[in-house]
């Protein structure tokens, strides 16, 4: 349904790479040559990546099966840490909270950032100013953000509740001081903070759509909504895929925002996995257990990413 209205110019349909160099009748030498050239492209980045990131990450996978207090030798304990996770109610709560945050944060941010990108991808006067404004939350110091938003959320004197009372809400929520409302409050701030960031990525993606496609669609008589669904959405697919993957992972990894906004409270109503990892590691000095939580978090992200990857592959066809 999605691609039918796009005139078959052929330029975008080959995205999956049917015409790649490897698509020629596969001579062995050619394949060897491609492998060699491919590696020369990847190597400068890969060496640094392998040593500085991949190595430590692999170490983490080992540590998840050990008991380690950051000093001296880690002691192999097998799956004991993971068995502990099965009955750890606080971990389950953190998992649930993380999911709660992600489920609210991902669609909201996606909608807000795409909306902003479409709105600001124009030649309106002052568009540079508005783009900068949208990006400002991302560059403003997180400490200042926490201070101001907490004040805005203040149950009695806060601007938000004063406004809600003005609108006739009798019993406005307690936001960051209430176990029920603290997570929605954090999600609001999270969306506000990251929408400019993802807007930027969408803006870049929008530039990659050839103008001729819009021209052609207009000639075919497609209205703005049809053009959006039939040209913009398919054209943005690589970008959207990238953004959903990044946004999902970043949502599951949410850390500093929670730390400064609520520190997991009240109670453990906003405790998330990353924070639990930090607590277990740096506060309770159980780096083995912390690593096992990180492995679970990694597993969740990978499963979700692979699903997104498969969906993306299917849509591309």
């Amino acid at each position, binding site marked *: 349904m999605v691609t039918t209205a796009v005139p078959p110019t052929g330029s975008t349909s080959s995205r999956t790479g049917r015409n790649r160099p490897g698509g020629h009748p596969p001579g062995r030498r050619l394949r060897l040559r491609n492998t060699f050239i491919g590696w020369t492209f990847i190597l400068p980045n890969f*060496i*640094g990546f392998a*040593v*500085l990131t991949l*190595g430590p990450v692999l170490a983490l996978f080992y540590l998840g099966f050990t008991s380690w*207090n*950051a*000093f*001296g030798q880690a002691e192999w304990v097998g799956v004991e840490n993971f068995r502990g996770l099965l*009955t*750890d*109610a*606080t971990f389950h709560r953190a998992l649930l909270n993380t999911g709660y945050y992600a489920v609210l944060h991902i669609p909201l941010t996606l909608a807000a950032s795409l909306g902003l990108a479409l709105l600001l991808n124009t030649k309106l006067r002052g568009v540079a100013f508005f783009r900068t404004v949208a990006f400002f939350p991302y560059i403003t110091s997180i400490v200042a953000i926490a*201070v101001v938003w*907490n*004040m805005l*959320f*203040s*149950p*009695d*004197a*806060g601007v938000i509740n004063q406004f809600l009372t003005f609108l006739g809400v009798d019993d406005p929520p*307690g*936001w*960051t*001081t*209430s*176990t029920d409302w603290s997570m929605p409050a954090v999600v609001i701030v999270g969306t506000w903070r990251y929408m400019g960031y993802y807007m930027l990525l969408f803006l870049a993606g929008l530039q990659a759509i050839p103008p001729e496609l819009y021209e052609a669609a207009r000639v075919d008589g497609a209205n703005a909504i049809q053009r959006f669904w039939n040209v913009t959405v398919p054209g943005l697919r690589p970008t959207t895929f990238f953004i959903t993957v990044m946004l999902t992972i970043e949502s599951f990894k949410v850390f500093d925002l929670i730390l400064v906004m609520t*520190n*997991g*409270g*009240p*109670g*453990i*109503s906003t*405790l998330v996995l990353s924070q639990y990892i930090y*607590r277990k590691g*740096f*506060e*309770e*000095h159980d780096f083995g257990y912390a690593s096992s939580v990180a492995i679970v978090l990694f597993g969740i992200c990978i499963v979700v990413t692979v699903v997104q990857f498969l969906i993306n592959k299917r849509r591309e066809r």
Partner: protein
Amino acid sequence: MKRSYLTATATAAAAALVLTACGGGDDQGEGGQDGASGAVTVSLAGWSLDTTPEFQVLADAFHEQNPDVTIDLVEYSADDYDTQMIADLSAGSAPDLYVMKNLKNFFTYEDGGQLVDVSDVAGQLGDEVSGVDAYTVDGATFAIPYRQDAWYLYYNKDLFDQAGVDYPDGSWTWDDYADAAEELTTGLDESNVYGTYQHEWQSTVQGFANAQSPGADLLSGQWDYMVPFYERAVDLQDEGTQLDYGSITTNSVSYQSQFGTQKTAMMVMGSWYVATLLAQVDSGEADEFAWGFAPAPQLDSSTVEEPITFADPTGIGINPAADDDVVAAAKEFLAFIGSEDAASALAEIGITPAVTNDTVAETYFGIDGMPTDGVSRFAFSTHDVRPENPVDANTAALQNILEDAHSAIMSGSVSPADGIDEAEQRAAAEVLG
């Protein structure tokens, strides 16, 4: 520029590979011998050096007595001191001497084999040094305390006079405190001043509950004794006698400005605030008013002779990665910080040292602007300070659970009894089970 970056990074990456492959294990402290003269430089970790003069004071006073040994300060972050220190110790790049900010992390450092046994130094110290026991595990001592804070009740004499309430006389129980807080709130109604202020930290409730309740044991996971302490705190904020927890957290309220700018007539707070308040009055950030500090309120009148309060000692230990001659010099330094000389030097800048004999007290109360009334003096020299954190593998995890309970109860999300009950269940299932 671009080339040099690239080559340097590539070289560094390659070097890292080689070094880890060889398992390079040269753990070395940063100090060392300076030539053949016998002069030794010992490095010491501190934080916020510009505004925390205690480390420099100790280093200078020691160097004066031992010209051969120079103490070099290494700056750490005040807020993330332990995170940085764990990383440095783990990688073998920590200084020769480092400070135990609290007892929660002392356990990790000791248990992880990151502290030299300094029992010989502890054996030479006088009996007056408080807090040594906290650093003693199975008969061996691993750090020497140089300061021993204690929680007091600060009060604003001007506001008490204005409300017509009697000053604390050193015999107050928590009930007396609550009554006074109510009276003050009513008496100061017009000027919009609260009777008392309780900061958002868990220590303000749990520290006293753990120290004063008979049979209280944080490690037991049975915390029913905390319930009455919480009920009192919740009542005080519900009736508007103290600023409520939600307002404090959402408005980033600082305790320094609450007491320093006379928004509250009383406040329980640690002894470190004395020096801060004096400095802020000097700089004009705090108002000038008559104030004093009294022993913290007690559970009942049976302990008023030697009031029970709490706070962890602050001590210094030696990094085992240090060279032998550095360790020898570091031990001399540790012996010094437990001495009366060091205590006097610290008292001069308003720090509560581990030694609080009459000479030290004389120095302390000689500071310009310090209250000199009898109750303040009594609070300084006579008290039974219990450590806030027992030295145990479970302490950090239990304190985290209790911190969650604190925010849940004080924000009004659960009743004190239910909140403590939940915390006990978590402790039993996740830590003690």
